[in-house]
């Protein structure tokens, strides 16, 4: 686990806490984890993530790892990918999974919803062009079914096609035979998952106390 590092100075934590909304204890725990993952280096790289054994059996592992290195998730309106991330960026990405607090106005809830859906959208839209094309969506479904030893690409294709049809019909209503639906834009994505209640689903529990981690 390494030598007991002195906790970073409070002002640093305060900045991070303001930016991401985590509490000091949570930031401390996550910092510890960051150092564990990066073997006490100041930055994390992709191979550090790939080394997590539990992640190995996750079908969408590649996309999850990519999401950490995607500038669009750093809330700074940048684009593109990076090769290594610091603790601050790690924390910002993690903050997408914070649950909304009890006393929030409807607007705040709505903006949190948008944020989480934006994260998902970025995960699907791998080429950064602002739309999820049929190819990209097919890729998503294929990845989902990849670990399950599925009936092959054929089914994934059909499922993705049916899903795309559904999006198109929800967003566009009626289309002429020669119109072409370019892909799912973010607005369509919002409309699609309107009833999904993502603000209550896309959360994990961030602990205030450090539990001994068994995964390396």
């Amino acid at each position, binding site marked *: 686990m390494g030598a007991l590092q002195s906790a970073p100075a409070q002002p640093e934590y305060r900045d991070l806490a303001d930016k991401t909304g985590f509490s000091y204890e949570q930031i401390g725990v996550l910092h510890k984890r960051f150092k564990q993952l990066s073997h006490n280096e100041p930055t994390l790289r992709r191979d550090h*993530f790939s080394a997590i054994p539990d992640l190995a059996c*996750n079908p969408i592992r590649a996309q999850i790892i990519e999401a950490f290195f995607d500038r669009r998730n750093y809330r700074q309106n940048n684009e593109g990918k990076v090769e290594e991330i610091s603790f601050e960026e790690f924390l910002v990405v993690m903050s997408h999974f914070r649950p909304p607090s009890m006393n929030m106005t409807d607007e705040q809830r709505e903006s949190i919803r948008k944020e989480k859906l934006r994260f998902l959208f970025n995960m699907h839209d791998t080429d950064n062009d602002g739309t999820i094309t049929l190819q990209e969506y097919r890729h998503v479904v294929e990845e989902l079914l990849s670990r399950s030893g599925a009936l092959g690409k054929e089914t994934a294709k*059909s499922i993705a096609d049916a899903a795309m049809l559904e999006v198109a019909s929800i967003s566009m209503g009626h289309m002429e035979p020669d119109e072409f639906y370019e892909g799912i834009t973010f607005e369509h994505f919002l409309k699609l998952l309107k009833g999904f209640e993502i603000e209550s689903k896309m959360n994990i529990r961030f602990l205030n106390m450090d539990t001994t981690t068994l995964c390396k």
Partner: protein
Amino acid sequence: MRLGCWCVLLLLFVSVASAGRDVDSGSNDTGRNPAPEDSHHQTNSTHHKKAFPVLSFNFDHVRKPFEISLWILLALLMKLGFHIIPRVSHVVPESCLLIVVGLLVGGIIKAFDEDAPVQMLDSKFFFLYLLPPIILDAGYFLPMRPFTENLGTILVFAVVGTLWNAFFIGLTMYGVCQIEAVKLGRVDLLSCLLFGSIVSAVDPVAVLAVFEEIHINELLHILVFGESLLNDAVTVVLYHLFTEFSHKGTVTVADAFLGVVSFFVVSLGGILIGAIYGIIGAFTSRFTSHSRVIEPLFVFLYSYMAYLSAEVFHLSGIMSLIACGVVMRPYVEANISHKSYTTIKYFLKMWSSVSETLIFIFLGVSTVAQPHPWNWTFVVVTVVVCFVSRVLGVVSLTYIINKFRIVKLTKKDQFIVAYGGLRGAIAFSLGFLLPDNEMKQLFLTAIITVIFYTVFVQGMTIRPLVELLAVKKKKESKGSINEEIHTQFLDHLLTGIEDICGHYGHHHWKDKLNRFNKAYVKKWLITGERSTEPQLISFYNKMEMKQAMMLVESGSAAKLPTIMTPVSMQNIQPKEPLKRRAIPSISKSREQEIRKMLRGNLQKTRQRLRSYSRHDLMVDPFEEDVSEVRLRKQRVEMERRMSHYLTVPANRQETPPVRKVAFESEHQVYTYDDSESPKGRRAQTNPRPPDEVHLLSESSTRTNQRATPADEQDDQLKLSRCLSDPGPKKDDDES
């Protein structure tokens, strides 16, 4: 006028019931004294030669089943009747109306025959026959995802909440009884605690009946409902505990400790028994592919056996039943045929509906049957204390629970949970099982009052309150494939993030359980290839099946099926100009020809006769099950076909089965089958149901007619132009 019909019905029923009783007593007399009268008869017979009885009346013979059927019929007619009067049924929940009917019937029977034993809600009858169908229906169709996500909260409410209620009510009532003015000094502590434990439990039947009609959101529904199911263990333990103690007289610490131990034994034992029966049931369903007709019976019988076995050991029968249904369901559903699934669903709904109706009516009837020693203080205080303790319990528990929940419960949620704590027939039946002592009648009266209060007052007012507080309603779920994809995606995403964070949370364990399930359990309990089918694909198949059936059903209906969306595959496929097919124009006469042809074929298939055998299920293309492998292949094929209908790619690499329909100059249609595909072969062997929809298409270059599912509307053809090529067609019966 309608009310008049009802009264006639009621009177008719009542008169038959009491007449039955008279005749019964009458024929009993004659039956009982044959011997001494024999000589009398003989002498009589010599005097009057009895004519041969052309028409005789022997009601005794069929008395019991007749009465039972009559009761059930009455209950169901009442249920029907309520919906004829829309205004009333909108305001008053059905359960209240049924209780009122029960009161009326009981009153009328009592008026007719003063000392008729109108004890209908016999406890044994209730617990062994009326309650299990409702619980099985609830447990089998329990929505697992919200249930497991909120399991901690539900358990806290069920266990801690019920304990709190029981003790608070018991102790308060004891305190009240000690007051001189009430004149109830004989009531001892244990009796009061027993009373408290009976009246504290939230009743699943009442909750179901009321919540079914108000359609609140899933979270609240599962909280209250889950609590009502899981508190059975607590109720059982407390009930037996206090009954034992009141026999023994003194309570030691060891006894209290044993009580706690017995709680764990009762609940975990019940769950274990249920799980064992569930696994056996799932395993049995693996082999039922050759006798589909009896598949539903296995589900029902194994579950009922689980219930009864748990009751044998005084474990919690309700928890056993639920565990059995929950464990059995995913495996059984993968194994059984679609028809059996529908059968199970409808039988369970039917039985539980009948049970529920009967329970409420009998509750009303039994109320009238009891003598009611009325003690204002006791009864009123009971009602008030019940309400107060419920509110206090919910509020304080929520305060603690919210510290551990990700999605907190708001004040509105707490109010609904507290207000939805209805008491029902279980409390009444348990009260009935009390040993006969002086307090029993008073307790029963109080219990009935509480039940009436909660069902009538709270049941009636909860709907306007829900509207007033703008509580979130249940969202209409349309089975969207996108939502399913994202549900799965989120599951994996959150598991991954938890792994990255390094703590083993809810998602991690769920994922581990799923993998264990897939790797070991499914292989044992699911037949053939289905064991490896991932959930997304099963969901997709189900959806396609549903849409296909909708298509078939609406083939003869007037309105368009909803899957014929105005958006089609060619709208989302990237354009490939080379492969685009020109949509030809057909002359009007050709259109007429085509349509007439289709119509003719459709009618022809309807006239096909079938030989009838009682034990055969109609073979239909959705599940021809000669062999499992074929079934699976057929499913995939079917799904592919359907998906082609929905999602035909513009480029045709996979050749559709070729069944060409060529139009000659006359009205003759030649069909020739030049494919060696399995579909072609299957065409000969599959009998088709009469309202099968034909999807005709062909790929010839000559006459590029297109035909749509046989639908007799004029604009159908126009719409078909907007749709893409329907793709491989279904076989028709012209082979």
